[in-house]
């Protein structure tokens, strides 16, 4: 580095100036000596003359020598020299002065200086003050601080620094002035370039973030850049403090010996260490130290370019903790983790992958990821990997194939991400063996459950079948029984009828009466059997309808005729009425008859005095049959159970009123089969009214051809 001392102003030609003064004395001194020689006469004249001559000769010789010497000197120097007399007329010019002014000495002699040596102020371009007056008047040397412009005879300009000094005579009086001037044009250019260079250097070092310091070999700062001053010692402490004092105590000795080594070997070196800043904070510094050699290639200074890498260090530290965190994370996660690039080269994986697959880290580093899947599952895995790269994510349930052939079911999720600008795939997989086992168990349970349900259903179906079979058997039994019962009844009723008809022979009254009782009981028994048969038919749904068209009046008459013996016997009245005398209807006549007979028979049975009325009315769709009696009536609490099977309203009535308890139940069932209904109203002691409503014409669904 070039220090400020490099800018010291040089003395402007002090040597040539003295020489010019001597020359002036020589010019002046020669007549003085001649005058003395003429004045002194006598004895001593000869001696004196001899001596004088000798001395003059000697002096002259000396002077001549000196003149030649001076002339040579003045010719050889680079400064211009011009001498004038006290009036300012040119008495001497050396060759440099002649070159710069453009005047030959013989032309310039006795010319006023201002004509030969024309100078202008550089800024104002005005003629400068003639320094001769000042020098003559005040008798002292003047020096121009700023260069002035010397305008040569041909108009060329040169920047010159000039100095003017008085020439004194033997008595000390000023006899002339000598000007010495120097062309500084080239030097100014060089200086300007140097200044610009230095300025640029300063600009660079001050704005560079690196800390630049120039140290002496003791580590003292000779120069520091702006940034250095901000962070460490300020510039005012230059030359005072050693840089080692600011190095962290732990690093100080290390750096000091490194410093020494660099000085010794001359080789530059890079080092990282800590420094303590102006406010006590610790910096991480990365520094390059290079020796600045002197002209003799000896180490003279040390250039130290440092950088505050604290941020980088902190970032590295953060990165390290981040890495540590992610390493811990991926290694502690229960599943497997891996990162592949698009060429299926693995970049990173966790320990679990090694554990699960059984491959070593070295193997995993080189294996293709598809290695970890069974052959039959490779295509779908590959397809999902491609999908992951295309769509950004994919997942799959797949078996992981270990080195030893063991398979473990995994649920693997893949995500695409960019690592160092390249698309990669991150895979995370969790072991789903437990879930699979649970699913299997659940499935088995479900399967078992289904089997159990199926078994149960089969059992129930079988039971149901069995029940239906039993029901069938019951119905068949009833049918068979009724048939078997009818066969003897056929005989009983037949022979009783024959006897009562007295076909075999005449009977007495008592015999007739008793045979009547037999016949009545047999008929009752037949009724019971018929009811049971109907019940079994209804319950086994084997009751069939036989729809036909008939005149309602005929039906009513038939019932009246059938009941006539009993009505007559009980001395009741049976009244019938039909609102439409020619009324016809379509239904199962036999069942309709059965219902009405049952209702009318009950009415007769439970009525001791009064009458039974059978009334038929019609509306647009229905035919309504009303069977009303003036009998004992039914208690309200019994009305609800009236139409249930095997019920006779009052248990005690059985002794008085015969019946199976099936009549009303069967009637209701039959009415329902015919698409109609039965209802009852009753009042205890005053009688009951049963109403049978049937459609005049059954719907086509019930229609029997």
């Amino acid at each position, binding site marked *: 580095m070039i220090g400020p001392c490099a800018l010291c102003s040089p003395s402007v030609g002090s040597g040539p100036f003295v020489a010019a003064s001597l020359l002036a004395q020589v010019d002046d001194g020669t007549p003085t000596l001649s005058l003395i020689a003429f004045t002194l006469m006598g004895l001593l004249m000869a001696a004196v003359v001899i001596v004088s001559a000798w001395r003059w000769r000697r002096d002259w010789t000396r002077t001549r020598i000196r003149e030649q010497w001076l002339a040579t000197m003045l010719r050889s120097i680079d400064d211009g020299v011009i001498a004038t007399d006290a009036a300012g007329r040119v008495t001497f010019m050396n060759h440099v002065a002649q070159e710069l002014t453009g005047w030959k000495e013989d032309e310039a002699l006795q010319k006023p200086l201002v004509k030969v040596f024309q100078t202008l102020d550089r800024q104002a371009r005005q003629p400068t003050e003639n320094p001769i007056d000042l020098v003559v008047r005040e008798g002292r040397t003047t020096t121009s601080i700023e260069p002035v412009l010397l305008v040569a005879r041909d108009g060329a300009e040169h920047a010159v620094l000039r100095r003017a000094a008085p020439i004194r005579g033997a008595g000390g009086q000023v006899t002339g002035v000598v000007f010495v001037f120097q062309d500084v044009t080239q030097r100014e250019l060089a200086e300007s370039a140097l200044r610009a260079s230095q300025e640029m250097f300063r600009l660079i070092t001050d704005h560079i973030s690196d800390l630049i310091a120039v140290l002496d070999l003791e580590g003292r700062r000779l120069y520091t850049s702006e940034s250095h001053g901000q962070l460490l010692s300020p510039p005012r402490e230059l030359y005072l403090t050693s840089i080692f004092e600011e190095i962290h105590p732990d690093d100080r000795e290390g750096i000091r010996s490194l410093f020494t080594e660099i000085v010794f070997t001359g080789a530059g070196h890079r080092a990282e260490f800590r420094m303590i800043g102006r406010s006590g904070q610790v910096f991480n510094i990365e520094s390059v130290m290079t020796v600045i050699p002197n002209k003799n290639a000896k180490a003279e200074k040390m250039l130290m370019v440092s950088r505050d890498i604290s941020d980088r260090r902190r970032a590295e530290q953060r990165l390290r903790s981040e890495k540590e965190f992610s390493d811990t994370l991926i290694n502690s996660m229960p599943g497997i983790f891996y990162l592949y690039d698009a060429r299926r080269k693995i970049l990173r994986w966790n320990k679990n992958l090694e554990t699960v697959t059984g491959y070593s880290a070295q193997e995993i580093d080189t294996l293709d990821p598809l290695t970890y899947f069974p052959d039959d599952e490779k295509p779908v895995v590959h397809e999902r990997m491609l999908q992951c790269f295309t769509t950004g994510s994919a997942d799959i349930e797949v078996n992981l194939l270990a080195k030893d052939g063991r398979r473990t079911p995994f649920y693997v999720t893949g995500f695409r991400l960019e690592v160092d600008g390249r698309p990669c795939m991150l895979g995370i997989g969790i072991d789903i063996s437990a879930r699979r086992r649970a699913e299997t168990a659940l499935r088995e349970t479900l399967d078992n459950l289904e089997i159990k349900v199926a078994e149960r259903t089969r059992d129930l179906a079988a039971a149901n079948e069995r029940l239906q079979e039993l029901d069938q058997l019951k119905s068949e039994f009833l049918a068979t029984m009724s*048939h078997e019962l009818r066969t003897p009844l056929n005989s009983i009723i037949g022979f009783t009828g024959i006897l009562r008809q007295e076909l075999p022979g005449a009977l007495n009254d008592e015999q007739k009466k008793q045979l009547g009782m037999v016949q009545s009981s047999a008929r009752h028994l*037949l009724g019971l059997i018929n009811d049971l048969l109907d019940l079994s038919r209804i319950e086994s749904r084997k009751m069939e309808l036989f729809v036909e068209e008939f005149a309602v009046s005929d039906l009513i008459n038939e019932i009246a005729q059938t009941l006539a013996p009993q009505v007559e016997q009980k001395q009741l009245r049976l009244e019938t009425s039909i609102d439409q005398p020619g009324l016809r209807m379509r239904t199962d006549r036999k069942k309709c008859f059965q219902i009405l007979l049952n209702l009318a028979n009950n009415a007769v049975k439970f009525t001791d005095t009064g009458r039974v009325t059978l009334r038929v009315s019609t509306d647009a769709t229905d035919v309504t049959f009303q069977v009303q009696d003036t009998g004992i009536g039914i208690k309200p609490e019994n009305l609800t159970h009236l139409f249930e099977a095997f019920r006779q309203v009052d248990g005690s009535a059985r002794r008085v009123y015969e019946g199976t308890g099936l009549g009303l139940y069967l009637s209701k069932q039959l009415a329902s089969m015919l698409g109609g209904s039965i209802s009852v109203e009753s009042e205890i002691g005053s009688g009951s009214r049963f109403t049978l409503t049937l459609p005049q014409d059954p719907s086509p669904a019930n229609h029997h051809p």
Partner: protein
Amino acid sequence: MSAKILLAEDNATNRYLETFLLEKAGYTVIHALNGAEAFRLALAARPDLVLMDLQMPEMDGYESARRIHAEPQLAGTPIVAVTSFAMTRDREKALQLGFAGYIEKPIQPHTFVAEISQFITGKAAST
């Protein structure tokens, strides 16, 4: 000559009852104890009417009637079912198979002969 009735009935008491009524009414009654016998007797005796119980041992009334009708010389012989089968189906089935009538047991002694007589054409019961 009185009308000849073949009575196929396995139950002796009922056979006696019906025979009593029919003979009282002046008909000639031939007995068969099962369907097979009824078929043979029908061929042999050429009755004017067959009264056929449907449920009988060895051969039931349906089969017997089918065979009788299958014989050309017996084709016109009316067969009336007299049965304690009381299901509607039985009546329908019988009528469909060519039975001329269907009388449910127990028979009504005072109307039985009258019912029977309408199936006998040409010959009257001798009284």
